[in-house]
Each structure stands twice: as C-alpha cells, then as structure tokens.
C-alpha cells in the first residue's frame, strides 16, 4: 500500500482532534547526538485553508477500530478504507518532515485496534524508534487510549512531551449514549494517573536533576460541542473543574462536524456551531489568563453566551458599578477586567505609569483598544470617566465578528428578542445597524 495513500487516510481521520500546541516542554539531553529541540513558545509552521495552525504531523497509527462511537468517522460500523502505519514507516516520515522544518514533531493518536493495550504497544514502538534510534528531541504529543493498562500509559508518558485523553462529550449521559465503549471511568482514570505522574515528576526533578521527564508539557483534553444538548454554562463549569482537579494545560472545544448519519446525532445538514465555539474559547481564555471564575462568566439563570458581546464585555456591561477605574491606581487584576485591555497591555500600563501619568493617547500607544476602553477608565485627560449612557457603551462593544460567522450561526442563539428583525436584514452592515437600533428600543442588553 502506497505511503501517500496511507498518509491521506490517516491524516484525514486525525484532523478532528484539534489539539495543536507545541509549547511548554523542556529541552532534552541526548549527549550531542540526535536531532531536534523544543521551543518554549511553540512554533506554527503553516496554516490550513480553514485558518488553523499546523505544527505537528497529526496522524493515527491506524484507523482500524473495534469501538462504535456514534460521531466518529472511524466507528467500526462505518464502511471506510482501513489502513495502518508500521512503526518504522511512521518514524521515518516524521524524521523526514522534521529535518525539512515542516513540523515541530508528532501528534499520534489511533483507532482501537484489537484492544487498547495492543494499540498502545504499537504506538509505543513508533515513539521508541524516534526517541532511541533517531535520538529525536522534538515534540511528541501522544494520545492515551481509554481503557489502557496503567503500566503502558506510564511507559508512554516517559516518551511524550504532552499527553491527552479526550473527555469527548460534556456530560456522562451524553457519553453513555454516543460512546458506550468509553465509560467515564476509562477516561478519567488515565487522566488522573497522568496528572499524578506529572506532579510527582516535578517534585522528583527538583531533587534529582537527571530524573527522566514524565509528560513535561502537561496534559490537555477535548470536548465536542453541539452534538449534545448541554448548555454553555455546563461546559465552562466542566472545563473549570478539569483545570482545577487535573491541572490540565488546555481544554479544546471542537465544533461538531456531522460526518455520519445516525438517529442519535444532529441532522447531517447541521452547520458546525462556530460562533459558539468561538465564545467558548473566549471564556476559556478568561478563566486562564484574566483571573475569571466560571460562575462570573455564566450562571444557572444565564446559561447561554451572548451572541453579540464577547464574555468579557458582557461581564463589564452587567457590572457597571466596578467602573470607571483609575488607570494609575487599578491593580493588574482590575485592569484585566477593562474591555480593550489584555494581559500584555495591562503589564505595559503597570510599567509605563511608574514613569509618567497616562493619557488616552498614551494608552493607545501601549496597545490598548481605546475605542472600547474609553468607556471604562479614568486617565490624565479624562478625569471623571465616561459620561454617556449604558446603551452607548453597549453599542460600542458589539462584536462585529458575530455577523461575519453568518446569520445561521446567530439563529442558533434564541435569547435575543429582536433576533428576527435583525436577521431579516439583507447585508451584514444592515444587520449591525438593526442590532444597534434594537438596543435603543429595549434600553437593556439582551435577556
């Protein structure tokens, strides 16, 4: 079987696993021989036509699978071509691509061939050829197979920079319905084992410098959104819980793309919920970089994202009592709450304000989006903050991207009263204006 044919099939099956990072690992020592390095910040080697970064050779070891997860193109009841890489083949391709600087390393997943343990053993063979024969020091992301033997998971952990196991669906009921071969305990047990291993390894490294590294770039996971009825609030609460309990580095959200027809799944013509996925990533960033708790972003009473405002702007509009903030006196955490100010510009403000007082113009030079921030701050040239109405502020914060995703994305959000009026307009421009008008009638943002 042709290598090109195998690569096409096995890359095609792996692309729905959106984990893409190549960052956060530590340099390895192979005594001057071998090839490769890891970059602290991660490197994007290319971008696909759908705008996503390519940094790893992302493939399955094989797409043979004995499981029948309803949403997966490789489910055993689906009639498709089944192929497999030999460990030698895959290791050779990885090194060939790596030498040409096409990739940072390998992302290896697999269908479950015969059993989780047999599958893991094949994957481990590939990784051992890379690490021990080629002396490969580049990035390896290995998928833990649910139900695998802890001894094999541990063995893989010493060969990988990052490992992950997918939570797949945001609740146990959904998991039992759509992926009955992967009970929750088979997913959480390896996740816990890896988390424990990473924590113990860090302690050991602080005592003995030459301890071999166990998953130095940490763990991540992925959940499919839009295939099952959970609310946005349930999803970010789950993500927040996973970050806290398992110390995950990242949670990835993958908009459901219908590949298969099944009574248990949304219709085959469903459009992937891209705007909703976008809001989830924005909320995820707020939790990791902006010191937000999940309950501050959404709640039981308001479990859905606002389609027209990003989650941070939404919080600001609903907490006007916190503003205006004095740019010279606010703490870093407080600065991060201001729309238009992110972690980089917040740090710059803290540095620059030691030297001189800041005006709106200075803020602009520091990278602040003053078109948004001006409604929330006190500066040297705006000593009493913004004096206009809440409606004016809301209009300035509307996310124009909400419209570029397309009106069918918006129609998936049924919370807004004037939605039909807005969607009735002919162009994106007119839709934006209709929204601004609708805001003025209602005198309140959205719920």
């Amino acid at each position: 079987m042709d290598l090109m044919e195998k690569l096409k099939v096995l890359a095609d099956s792996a692309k729905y696993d959106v984990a893409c990072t190549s960052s956060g690992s530590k340099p390895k020592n192979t005594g001057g021989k071998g090839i490769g390095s890891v970059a602290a910040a991660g490197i994007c080697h290319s971008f696909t036509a759908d705008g996503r970064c390519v940094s790893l050779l992302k493939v399955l070891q094989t797409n043979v699978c004995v499981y029948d997860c309803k949403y997966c193109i490789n489910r055993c009841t689906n009639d498709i071509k089944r192929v497999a890489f030999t460990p030698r083949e895959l290791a050779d391709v990885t090194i060939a691509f790596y030498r040409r600087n096409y990739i940072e390393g390998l992302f290896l997943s697999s269908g479950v061939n015969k059993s989780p343990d047999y599958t893991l053993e094949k994957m481990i063979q590939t990784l051992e050829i890379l690490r021990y024969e080629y002396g490969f020091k580049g990035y390896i992301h290995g998928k833990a197979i649910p139900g695998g033997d802890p001894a094999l998971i541990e063995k893989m952990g010493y060969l990988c920079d990052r490992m992950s196991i997918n939570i797949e669906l945001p609740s146990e009921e959904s998991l039992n319905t759509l992926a009955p071969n992967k009970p929750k305990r088979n997913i959480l047990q390896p996740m816990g084992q890896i988390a424990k291993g990473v924590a113990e390894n860090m302690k050991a490294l602080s005592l003995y410098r030459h301890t071999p590294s166990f998953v130095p770039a940490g763990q991540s996971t992925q959940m499919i959104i839009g295939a099952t009825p959970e609310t946005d609030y349930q999803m970010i609460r789950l993500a927040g819980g996973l970050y806290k309990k398992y110390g995950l580095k990242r949670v990835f959200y993958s908009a459901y793309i219908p590949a298969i027809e099944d009574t248990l799944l949304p219709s085959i013509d469903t459009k992937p919920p891209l705007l909703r996925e976008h809001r989830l990533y924005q909320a995820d960033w707020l939790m990791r970089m902006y010191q937000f708790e999940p309950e501050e972003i959404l709640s039981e009473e308001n479990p859905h994202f606002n389609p027209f405002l990003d989650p941070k702007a939404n919080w600001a509009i609903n907490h006007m009592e916190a503003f205006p903030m004095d740019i010279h006196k606010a703490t870093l955490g407080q600065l991060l709450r201001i729309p238009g100010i992110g972690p980089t510009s917040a740090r710059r403000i803290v540095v620059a304000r030691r030297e001189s007082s800041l005006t709106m113009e200075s803020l602009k030079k520091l990278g602040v989006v003053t078109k948004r921030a001006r409604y929330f701050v006190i500066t040297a040239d705006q000593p009493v903050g913004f004096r206009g109405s809440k409606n004016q502020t809301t209009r300035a914060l509307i996310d124009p991207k909400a419209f570029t995703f397309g009106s069918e994305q918006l129609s998936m959000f049924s919370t807004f009263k004037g939605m039909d009026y807005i969607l009735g307009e002919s162009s994106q421009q007119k839709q934006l204006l209709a929204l601004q008008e609708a805001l003025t009638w209602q005198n309140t943002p959205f719920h």
Partner: protein
Amino acid sequence: MAKYTLSLENKDCIYLYDGTLAGFYNCVYEAVYEKEIPLYIWTDHTKQQSFFFTKSISTHMEKAQKVRESVKTQLGSQGQYLVKTVFFSCLEDKEKKMLDLILLGYEKGRNILEALDHPVVNPLYKAQRHLLGEVHLFEGFVRFEEVDGLLYSKIAPKNEVLPFLSRHFADRFANEKWMIFDEVHKVALCYEKGKTQLIPVNHIEVITSQEELDWQSLWKTFYKTLSIKERENKKGRMNHMPKRYWSNLVEVADEG
C-alpha cells in the same frame, strides 16, 4: 547612575558610514565628540543626493567598543538589546532614531526605557517587535530541501532576521549541515559542526532531486488533507501567514 548633561547642537550635516553596527557606534562617538546631531545617517545603500555637507565616518573598533560599553552602562542590557535589534530591523531612518534614543538615555538614565509611550522610545520598541515577530515566524516558515546531503533553504524577510535565527537552528539541527539564504539582503547563514557563519551571497541556483520532490509531494498531500471544508477561512489563513511568504513555502507556493 551618572547622567550626562550633553549640549549637542542640531547641525545641517549628514553622516555616511559603512553599514555595520560597529560603524554606527562610531557615528554615535562622532556626534558626542563633536557635540553635534546630524540630520541624517546614511550608508552607501540608503544615501540620496543632497546639498548638505556629508561626513564620512570611518570605523575604529576601539571607539565602537567604548560606545557599546557606555550604552550598556547608561541604558542597561535592555537598552543594549533594543539598540541591537532595531539595528537589524527595517525601520526607516533607524540610525538617526537610535542615536536619538542613546542621547536621551545618556541624559535621563535607563528609566526612560520604561516610558513606553515616549515619542522617541515607542517607535523603537515597535520596530523591535516587528523584527522579533518576523524571526519567530521564520522559525516556522523556513523550509529545507536536501541537496547533496546539505539542508538548504531560501527566505525573503523584511528585517535582517538571520543573526536571530542562528541559535534556534544550530540547536535543533546540531548534527546536520545547513544553509539559509536571505534573498532580499543577499546573505546566507551557514552551519557546520557547531560553527555558524554569515556569508554575503548574490544568487544561488539549486537543482531539486526526484527524491526531494517526492517528500515535498507527501507534505503537500498532508497539508491539503488537514483542511476541514466546513470551516474554510482563507482570510484567517492570510492573517496568520501573509502572502509575501508563500513563494518559499512548499505547500502554498503554487497557490500564491
């Protein structure tokens, strides 16, 4: 931290130097020694016709060393790094702007580097970010092809990124022989057995072997397969991967 009170006059003259960092430091030395601030600082590549008096600044290593040390002392290592990076950036009139920064640093001390909104300081940090951003892009966008056991690559950067790419590729491909040719600035970065060199080169012609074409074909197939049709976002792709880099990227060279 001693701060110098310099009284330099703006003079209607132009400095002409040899285009090296050491040569630039000599310009700084000249300005401080002669108590003057020139209108422009040009090299043979950037010079224009002018009626103003032009001074040719020769490069003396001792003078360059003195200036380098005083920059380190007065502006700190952050200031020194700022000067070094901006020198290799594509900022217009960078030499004059760097001179302004150094004189400002002599006068006010290194704290002036924290005034990120200052009209002299701000554009230099922007230029530094532009250079370092492009360096980071190229860590990903350099594409090697194997030619007679050597890994060869061609790039077309706006800034002079080669000195900043050296460490990364020397670490990663320590046991290979490789070369990156900057076709805009006509310089090649060459590495073998732990040693890197920058060599001026005008033009390089390469014949791609069949085996190499096969690997490139495999990569192109992988690249095309990865895209998810339902999420097509060509504009997003161009934002992250500007079209000017496409001619040297195997997987999109024909689309560009």
